[in-house]
């Protein structure tokens, strides 16, 4: 009965590859997010979606593309992976857009070699 789940938990890949991280929430929330925690432990928002509509799009390379097939899922596709993409990626959800608590998944540690 995991609230926010992500797959895979670990992802090791070569530079130049394309990879995806999946996120699902069973909380019935309308809004989902992707955050990146870099090597310095800064946790920064990348995207948010509300009912499949893009709400927040921070300054993120266009190699990163979120896709929301329905409001319970928000996947992150990354093309042409670079060394600097190595980080922990967290998915989160909240009942609505506009503040309030966000509930985080366990994270996906991406290592680009």
């Amino acid at each position: 009965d995991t609230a926010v789940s992500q797959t895979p938990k670990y992802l090791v890949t070569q530079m130049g590859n394309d990879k995806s991280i999946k996120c699902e929430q069973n909380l019935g929330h309308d809004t989902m997010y992707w955050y990146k925690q870099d090597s310095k432990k800064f946790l920064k928002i990348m995207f948010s979606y509300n009912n499949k509509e893009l709400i927040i799009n921070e300054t993120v390379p266009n190699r990163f593309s979120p896709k929301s097939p329905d409001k319970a899922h928000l996947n992150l596709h990354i093309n042409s992976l670079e060394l600097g993409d190595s980080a922990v990626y967290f998915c989160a959800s909240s009942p609505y857009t506009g503040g309030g608590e966000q509930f985080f998944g366990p994270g996906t540690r991406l290592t680009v070699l």
Partner: protein
Amino acid sequence: DQQVKQNSPSLSVQEGRISILNCDYTNSMFDYFLWYKKYPAEGPTFLISISSIKDKNEDGRFTVFLNKSAKHLSLHIVPSQPGDSAVYFCAASEGIGKLIFGTGTRLQVFP
């Protein structure tokens, strides 16, 4: 430009005593503040929050204080327990759901 700052990277407290974690922010438009707790290899877990219209919110052993004039908030944990040992992040929001996180404070509670 770090809008939310946690200037103490670590804090060590004896079990049973009070832990005080501090957070400063620069953006006066922030209207909601949150504290998260994070264990290694896990996602952040929500602890407690406070709206900008309040100056205190309490939940069990956890109390958050907000001083808007000083742009400062703090989290008090009393009494501290060994299970509280984790990294604590403060976060701020300005209404569109975008959380701005601090860099975290590692709390260690020793017996």
